[in-house]
């Protein structure tokens, strides 16, 4: 059946409210036919003839490389493409009987809810419960129903304990839970989520997967775009891949662990040490008498739940967070009093969400900032920029503006911008967020390669398969400091 030809159109005379027969006996909540879309000014289409049915109670997982079109497809399902983004569109998208390509999102009547990739951008109001109530308020629900929906949504998202908190004070993982609750509060028939576990720890991701399965069992259709398939494949009814704007069934996960370079047999001297550091945020103590050492030639994974202090430890190491007591040594130098610019280039930190904070107009300039600080000019500069860009798969886009890139591509730019300075201590905070498996493999190889050159590498991550593939040893944030530990079990190794 060709969509749009053999259907009976009911409802609004202007054709904006369309109902379709249900040939398979299951209720179809979302139907996409021959959808093609190109963003304004883009040379190539983001989607090319995508067709998809999503049934009530079904969970569809979308995988595929960064920039392949997953987020665009989710936005089309949510009515944001082309209404909000503009661009050239053809084909059809219907959600719960509404023509999502013709109507603005607000006119879809809450049939669809979308959780964006960056939870920071999803909050509209200042406190958790008010923000979660924003959607039901827009729907004009009575006050008692708003209260019920907010309670239920917070419970479903595992965020009841955040009630009354200010959004500004939440960690990334907590914000992600609130963003999910804010969408659940509309009780949408179709729930679409873009990388929903990217900032969640293992337990929180498992809890979210359980919640999504429960919602689907109640009849909600769920579409999830996720690079970390091992977290959502167990609950999926179908797994598809979006590559170069085309939709296809996903191949089974690659369970083979990439054989990486063996760890250094001869441990070097400590490249960086943290000695009895106390640190916190105001009254809240995060680290107490914390000590650790990173050795050149080894990759150390730092794991721990959201809010356990991983980022604080990394910021203390880099000089961005002043400890209350204790000291930080790079080699034999006490650098506790030095700001980050004076720890550069011996120590390089790629912070969380670095793609948001790029400094220049082109990728080449961005990678070159560190070289300017080092006084590297001319051919040597160009060669190093090209090398760093090639390592991260960016060499074909050196003149593009960073804001034109996908989230995963931006993060690679930020990584290249630090790696180009060749720090002897390399610290990465959640570096695989928004990265597809192929890029993760590349990153693991790059990290191992730097370690083989004698660099001490510390990676704070929730990504267990990545840590298993990349790290020689594991530190777990526990009781206010890093202690040697083991990784939690991974469901499927996709690296």
């Amino acid at each position, binding site marked *: 059946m060709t969509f749009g030809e053999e259907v009976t159109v009911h409802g609004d005379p202007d054709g904006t409210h369309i109902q379709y027969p249900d040939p398979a006996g299951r209720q179809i909540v979302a139907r996409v036919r021959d959808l093609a879309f190109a963003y304004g000014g883009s040379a190539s289409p983001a989607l090319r003839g995508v067709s998809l049915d999503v049934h009530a109670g079904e969970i569809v997982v979308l995988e595929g490389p960064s920039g392949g079109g997953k987020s665009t497809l989710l936005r089309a399902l949510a009515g944001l493409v082309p209404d909000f983004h503009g661009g050239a569109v053809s084909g059809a998208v219907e959600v719960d009987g509404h023509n999502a390509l013709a109507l603005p999102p607000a006119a879809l009547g809450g049939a669809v809810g979308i959780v964006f990739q960056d939870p920071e951008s999803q909050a509209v109001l200042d406190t958790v419960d008010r923000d979660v109530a924003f959607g039901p308020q*827009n729907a004009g629900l009575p006050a008692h129903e708003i209260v019920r929906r907010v309670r239920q949504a917070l419970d479903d998202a595992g965020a009841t304990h955040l009630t009354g908190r200010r959004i500004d004070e939440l960690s990334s993982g907590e914000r992600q839970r609130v963003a999910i609750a804010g969408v659940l509060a509309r009780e949408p028939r179709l729930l679409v989520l873009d990388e929903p576990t990217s900032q969640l720890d293992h337990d929180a991701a498992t809890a979210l997967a359980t919640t999504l399965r429960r919602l689907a069992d109640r009849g909600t259709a769920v579409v999830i775009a996720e690079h970390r398939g091992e977290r959502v494949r167990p609950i999926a009814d179908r797994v598809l891949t979006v590559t170069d704007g085309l939709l296809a069934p996903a191949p089974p996960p690659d369970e083979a662990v990439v054989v990486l370079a063996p760890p250094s047999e001869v441990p070097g001297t400590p490249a960086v040490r943290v000695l009895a550091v106390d640190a916190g945020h105001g009254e809240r103590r995060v680290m107490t008498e914390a000590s650790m050492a990173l050795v050149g030639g080894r990759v150390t994974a730092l794991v721990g739940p959201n809010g356990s202090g991983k980022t604080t430890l990394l910021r203390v190491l880099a000089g961005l967070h002043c400890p209350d007591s204790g000291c930080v040594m790079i080699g034999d130098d006490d650098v506790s009093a030095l700001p980050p610019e004076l720890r550069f280039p011996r120590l390089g930190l790629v*912070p969380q969400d670095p793609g948001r904070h790029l400094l220049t107009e082109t990728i080449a300039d961005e990678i070159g900032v560190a070289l300017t600080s080092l006084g590297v000019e001319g051919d040597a500069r160009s060669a190093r920029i090209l090398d760093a860009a090639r390592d991260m798969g960016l060499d074909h886009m050196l003149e593009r503006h960073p804001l034109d890139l996908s989230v995963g591509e931006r993060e690679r730019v930020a990584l290249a911008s630090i790696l180009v300075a060749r720090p002897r201590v390399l610290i990465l905070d959640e570096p695989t967020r928004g990265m597809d498996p192929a890029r993760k493999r590349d990153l693991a190889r790059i990290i191992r390669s730097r370690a083989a050159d004698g660099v001490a590498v510390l990676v704070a991550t929730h990504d267990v398969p990545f840590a298993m593939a990349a790290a020689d040893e594991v530190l777990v944030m526990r009781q206010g400091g890093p202690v040697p530990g083991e990784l939690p079990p991974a469901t499927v190794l996709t690296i």
Partner: protein
Amino acid sequence: MGPMGGDRAPMPIVLLVLVAGILAFTSDQPLVLAALAAGAVVFLLAAPGHPGHLVLIGALVSAAGVLILTPLVSGQGDLVLFTIPMPPLLNGEITAEELGAGASAAARVLATVALAAALFAWADPDRMLAGVGRVAPRSALVSAIAARLVPTLRRDARAISETARLRGIVLTTGPRMARARRAAPLALPLVGSALERGLDVAEAMAARGYGEGRRTRLPERRMDIGERTTLALTGILAVVVGWAIAIGATDFSFFPTMGPILTPASIALGACALAALVLAALALGHPRGVGRQSAP
């Protein structure tokens, strides 16, 4: 960095600021304006998150400018204090009356800015936006985006600065001008970030049904003892201000000779304004609890 806005019910604070503002603009009495400015500064500095310091510096600079410029552009007053050489069009003969008028205008500037800043520092921004939304929904949309953007951009500004420092750009040491020169290019990514964040927030609002139709409200908690006390203080101040305006106690003449500053009416009015603002700061600063409705 403190949070953006307090968690207090906006109505008592809006009314208090309104009454105090009316007094600031209707009174020329130097004593009343000085008391009002002092009270407004206390009210601002007592707000949660201590957000008033930068605003206060700006207000003090503006007030100092008014104080200095008023005698230079005015040519009135009987009591000449001193004469300074001045280019044409400016007045170098400084009188006590001109200084008095300048001081009053400076106090008015300080009081007005501090009161406005205190309103945003104490009042719950979400509830203020909800109030704006009732009378001007489109303005509320713009305000909501702006309100969300301010704290986000503060974080972005800090993150951009940290990104630069992690790549060896020295922003915290060295001569001030050199640091400013190195920091100036960072304004561009911040503007880019602001535009992108604005689009993101607008997209999130659209996706969450903003503009769908008539909005309803989450029930808000009842006013607690501190907010009710502020409301009572506002009522008393409103009565006193009304009485003072009615009997002409807010009038004051600077020229040609300055009138009496210390009069019973001006002392009473100034004391009342100062007391209302200081007591309101104490009442609102008291931990909430009485009259609080459980959150959903």
